[in-house]
């Protein structure tokens, strides 16, 4: 072969490879792309849409409570708070990006906990105007779901304390602020953040340089959330870092006694990411995993069910369970640890995303 021919062949080959890279991946057939699109649009955006509408309903109930101040209105407001809480906890799986990062950092504005009663009492004791506008400038400990929870469930407070009072104004202002922040979070996801995940590797967006990296990061989020449940939601109230002395005041949703339900809602979000939902639009990772390692997919389901069952076994409110049934919480913590490990080690291993997984070059 003459040199000219050789270099020509090499050039054509190289060009074919480069062109191949641009042409080969087809979004329409790649199940990983479909998973990411489903998770971002159906789970994250879907839950945030529900959060916005539930927050709006909560605002309406808060207004009625301030205007009427009856027991029925208080019960309705509490119920609305509970309803709005569910999509937030399901979507805690997506507690990164605009939820966590500056400048938006919507997370603490929505869900700063453990609650700091002093911060809320200071606002109640103040004399400044309390409305939707002024609520924007409140610090994270004085607003969001936990502050609202404290106001609605504070021991010794009756329904009439809300009627035409500063407490009533505060609840209305916080509900309006909640809706505003939830809407802003939804907008952030809808306006491009969701796409930066689902279309990873297709543009210069460097959040996730490749499709496998985005998939791996999303699955890792499930493990991160489970770690958060174990460390912050169970171990802290159990008093692990306080020499074993229970710390019920460190429990999530301690006034409404929704702590364990919060965890179950968290796991519901993980369930949908891993196994999908009844709706055909919500695809689960198992759909992809079954192709890679069918046995692992079924083992994952067994372990997930075991962890969920262990959490559901705790029938007492979390603040009571840490004192009266710590062994059940320990058992739930262990089952969750097993699930977390399987996701982090076996599932991510099966996805083979370790080369260049972080965005930095691999090997």
């Amino acid at each position: 072969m003459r040199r000219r021919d050789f270099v020509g062949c090499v050039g054509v080959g190289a060009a074919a490879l480069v062109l191949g890279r641009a042409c080969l991946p087809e979004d329409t057939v790649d199940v990983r792309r479909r998973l990411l699109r489903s998770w971002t649009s159906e789970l994250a955006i879907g839950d945030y849409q529900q959060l916005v509408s539930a927050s709006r309903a909560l605002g309406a109930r808060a207004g009625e409570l301030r205007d009427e101040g009856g027991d029925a209105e208080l019960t309705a407001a509490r119920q609305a708070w509970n309803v709005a809480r569910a999509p937030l906890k399901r979507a805690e799986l997506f507690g990164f990006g605009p939820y966590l990062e500056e400048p938006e950092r919507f997370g603490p504005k929505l869900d700063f906990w453990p609650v700091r009663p002093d911060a809320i009492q200071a606002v109640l004791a103040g004399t400044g105007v309390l409305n939707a506008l002024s609520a924007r400038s409140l610090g994270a400990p004085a607003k969001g779901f936990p502050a609202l929870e404290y106001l609605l469930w504070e021991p010794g407070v009756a329904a009439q304390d809300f009627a035409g009072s500063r407490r009533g104004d505060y609840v209305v202002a916080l509900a309006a602020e909640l809706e505003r922040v939830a809407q802003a979070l939804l907008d952030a996801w809808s306006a491009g953040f969701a796409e930066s995940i689902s279309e990873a590797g297709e543009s210069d967006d460097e959040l996730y340089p490749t499709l496998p990296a985005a998939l791996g990061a999303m699955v890792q989020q499930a493990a991160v959330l489970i770690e958060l449940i174990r460390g912050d939601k169970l171990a802290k109230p159990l008093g692990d870092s306080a020499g074993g002395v229970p710390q019920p005041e460190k429990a999530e949703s301690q006034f409404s006694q929704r702590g364990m339900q919060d965890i179950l809602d968290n796991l519901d979000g993980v369930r949908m990411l891993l196994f999908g939902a009844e709706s055909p639009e919500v695809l689960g990772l198992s759909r992809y995993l079954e192709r890679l390692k069918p046995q692992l997919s079924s083992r994952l389901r067994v372990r997930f069910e075991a962890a969920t069952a262990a959490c559901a076994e705790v029938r007492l409110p979390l603040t009571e369970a840490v004192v009266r049934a710590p062994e059940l919480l320990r058992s739930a913590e262990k089952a969750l640890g097993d699930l977390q490990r399987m996701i982090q080690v076996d599932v991510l291993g099966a996805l083979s995303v370790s080369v260049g997984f972080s965005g930095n070059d691999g090997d």
Partner: protein
Amino acid sequence: MSESWRARLSRPASAAGLGAFRALFGLLMCFGTLRFLARGWIEELYVRPEFHFSYLGFEWLRPWPTWGLYLHFALMFVAALALAVGLYSRLSAAAFGLLFTWAELFDKATYLNHYYLVSLLALLLVVVPCGNACSVDSWRARRRGEAPAPVAWAHYGLLRAQLFCVYTFAGLAKLNSDWLLRAEPVRGWLLQFADWPLLGRLFVAQPSAFAMSWAGALFDLSVVPLLWWKRTRKAAFALALVFHLSNWLMFPIGIFSWLMLVSLTLCWDPDWPAALLGRWSRVPHPRSCSRDERPLRERSPRLVGRTWLALAGAYLLLQFLLPLRGLLYPGELNWTEQGFRFAWRVMLIEKTGSVEYEVETPRRRFLVSPRDELSALQLRMLSTQPDMIHEYALHLARRYSDEGPVKVRARAYASLNGRPSQPLIDPEFDLASAPLGLGPAPYIVPLERPGAELAAR
């Protein structure tokens, strides 16, 4: 060494090939440095993490403050640019090598085989006359009326031997049961491409994984000799081109493929730039890059000194021995990773892990997640590498030392090449009680299934 060998190694060769390599390497490093800055890796890898993993003996070396880091990388870019154009070539190589290596030493978690190779190549460019052609240095020398200086075959030989080490040890590392008998981790990697049209089905077929595994090992073991031998050089380079470009297309391995392709030009005829420019561009090639000097045999050879040869020999011996140190440690090397770094174990394993620590003080016993103060990259590296797990445990022991004697145990699990997860670290071992060192780590749990087994997928 006999005088005949010394004379043989001192034979003059065209400086063009070495000059072209220096220029291409410098340009690649310019690109690499800009890419590092543009991707925000300074912030992600060095600024945000609150803790950095150290190499043994370099614990004193810490990342600069943010402005210092940017200055460091700016200087690195300038040095790479100077190297590319051949301005004070050897000094530029030294400056670039020092700055690059310094940055690599900031954090062990950022270790990459090709970053290590960059450091070594920069060092070698300091000790060979890399600025004798295709450079501002040679242009200035000609303006001063100095005759262009050739380089010795030994200079090419040293660089080629370095590449030989890289490929050969990379190939030898692949001669294990996972790679050859289970086609792991290639099989797992190929499954990622199952949805590619046309090629997807081919990739997921079991024979494809075996073919690619075996071909990869054979390629690594044979490419340098095949490139060295003139009769197979063209075919070998075509093979290398396909191999490295397909790796680049399929895996996010950054500049690694390009670094290897640029390096492989060292195995060509040293006169290749002149030949290429003369035949293909039809433009007069630069004097310094060409056969513009007298025929080699007429030049007065500049012999390489005995000291140079002795030091080069010692360097190559070290390069030969360093990758073999893993044999001194008990257990499966890909699992224990003792002797894994600086050993050219490139794209060899798929390993995932998780780790959390149980800290026990006289007052309390609690779990600590390293996630709070580590970056995603650090966390991923930590979760599978026992020495890093140990180092972080010692960090935790220091953090809680004001509560009295501290015990730190790791709950670490990992999976290697598709095996089910298993403990990586003995959960009862107090890591705080063991100092860091080069000896065998007593806390690593042996790999439970080291043999070749074809797990059902």
